């Protein structure tokens, strides 16, 4: 439908359903991630998790990432490979091939390929045949570099001359933290899932009864950004005599962390408790995505009792994934909220408000980064957030004892939020345990 019909004042009368039946449009600039799309090119400049290591068996596995059908495998020497689905010889699918001592071998005519796509063997061609020489020199199977880290397999699907450093976040290595990989599938576009991390209003409303009473307190909401690469949605909540500052963070394009899911309920002090998950929202195709993550357990993360398949489903979305329709209606989680929008939301019919500022900011920045890339400007890597080495992150819970002193609590909640953020920001000059120690001791001085 046209702009004119949107602007038609009849759309805003009471009982105006008839006038509102026009279809909205998604923001295709950021929803489409296939090869050759603007956002697809942008996302292909970053490392993304593509699979859980332990769920890859001895056979090659067909997967789909950003609308590309790919075959993931581990050869018998231990190397991981991520290659285009079809054999460059006669286009048979390599998912039916077998893992060799080195690389993968097609089931159809036995062509063998190394993990970098080089042709290693062409059965049936006499040694020295012109064809064999030409193939080995000129034919390559499309391949991408893979890196395994703590049970997740990451891939870089962009041009090799732009290969970025693998970003190493502080939460990749917190002493005594138990990190368990999980994957949460969503039958909708990646943007719908990503939006929630910078949306602290949904945390209090959708999840009001799923984690703790304190979770349902709306509190004072504030948004911050850091070098236009990191976006925060924070909530400063009153729970009895305590103030609970929960920091959700998004590092572009798709890295997310928050506070804990079950370790904090606002009733007990907590100082810079870390995120329930260290997580990436990865497009499968334009109508599906997977949240790949580690659930983080231990003193600074969530309680060990949630280190189970079910526990991590609760962490990911407040409810179990497999439920009856009646259960979903009774207590919807993120899956219901975001899949209910349809597989690709009609963004042009949204009406964002001030509580959605985090969403409008980060979406606009992704659009800008995409356009800049089209103009030849490299998108910033997460490494811009540090002077080098480990990237400090902020997703956290802090609970301070600060009784309400005035009838209106708003000022104290907002000021406390700012103070907590200032302390966490100031910690950036340090790294690792030294940073944590400084942040925690300064937070303890507040209450």
């Amino acid at each position: 439908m046209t702009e004119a019909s949107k602007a038609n004042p009849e759309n805003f009368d009471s009982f105006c359903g008839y006038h509102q039946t026009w279809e909205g449009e998604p923001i295709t600039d950021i929803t489409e991630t296939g090869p050759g799309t603007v956002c697809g090119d942008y996302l292909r400049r970053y490392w993304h998790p593509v699979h859980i290591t332990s769920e890859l068996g001895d056979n090659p596995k067909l997967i789909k990432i950003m609308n590309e059908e790919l075959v993931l495998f581990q050869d018998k020497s231990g190397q991981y490979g991520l290659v285009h689905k079809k054999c460059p010889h006669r286009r048979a699918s390599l998912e039916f091939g077998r893992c060799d001592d080195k690389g993968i071998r097609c089931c159809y005519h036995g062509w063998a390929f190394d993990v970098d796509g080089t042709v290693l063997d062409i059965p049936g061609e006499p040694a020295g045949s012109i064809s064999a020489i030409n193939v080995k020199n000129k034919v390559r199977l499309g391949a991408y570099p893979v890196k395994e880290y703590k049970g997740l397999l990451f891939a870089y699907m962009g041009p090799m001359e732009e290969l970025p450093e693998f970003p190493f976040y502080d939460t990749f290595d917190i002493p005594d933290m138990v990190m368990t990989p999980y994957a949460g599938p969503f039958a909708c576009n990646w943007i719908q899932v990503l939006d929630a991390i910078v949306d602290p209003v949904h945390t209090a409303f959708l999840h009001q009864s799923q984690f703790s009473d304190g979770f349902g307190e709306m509190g004072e909401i504030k948004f911050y950004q850091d070098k236009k690469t990191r976006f925060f949605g924070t909530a400063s909540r009153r729970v009895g005599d305590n103030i609970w500052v929960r920091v959700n963070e998004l590092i572009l394009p798709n890295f997310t962390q928050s506070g804990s899911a079950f370790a904090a309920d606002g009733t007990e002090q907590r100082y810079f408790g870390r995120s329930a998950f260290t997580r990436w929202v990865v497009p499968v195709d334009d109508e599906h995505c997977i949240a790949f993550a580690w659930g983080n357990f231990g003193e600074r993360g969530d309680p060990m009792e949630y280190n189970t398949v079910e526990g991590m489903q609760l962490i990911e979305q407040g409810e179990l994934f497999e439920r009856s329709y009646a259960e979903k209606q009774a207590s919807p989680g993120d899956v219901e909220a975001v899949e209910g929008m349809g597989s690709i939301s009609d963004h042009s019919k949204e009406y964002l408000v001030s509580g959605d500022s985090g969403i409008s900011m980060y979406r606009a920045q992704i659009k800008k980064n995409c356009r800049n890339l089209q103009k030849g400007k490299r998108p910033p890597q997460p490494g811009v957030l540090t002077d080098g080495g480990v990237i400090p992150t902020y997703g956290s819970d802090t609970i301070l004892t600060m009784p309400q002193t005035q009838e209106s609590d708003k000022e104290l909640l907002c000021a406390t939020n700012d103070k907590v953020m200032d302390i966490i920001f100031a910690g950036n000059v340090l790294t690792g345990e030294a940073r944590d120690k400084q942040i925690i001791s300064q937070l303890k001085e507040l209450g």
Partner: protein
Amino acid sequence: MTGSWIKVCAANDIDEEDLVRFDHGEQTFCIYNTSKGFFATDGMCTHEDEHLEFGMVIDTVIECPRHQGRFDIISGEALSEPVCVNLKTFPVKVEDGDVYIQLA
């Protein structure tokens, strides 16, 4: 009576077809680098309480990140729904590689 010129930043601190936010006293502005030169407008969208800092500069148009309302950067004119009140503009000059804004 004309106001004084206030230094904002170096001209090359603003990418082409982009903007920076500039806060001065109680006021907040956006300073743009476009194909037609440097320009300045009020920082806040005239529709709702949203800063244009994260808006998208498209040639000489700024698009608000919240509802995608558009303004002409040079004239401040409101160009598309839902914005209907024009954006205030301010004179800008570039001298010795620095950008200055003139405030009334």
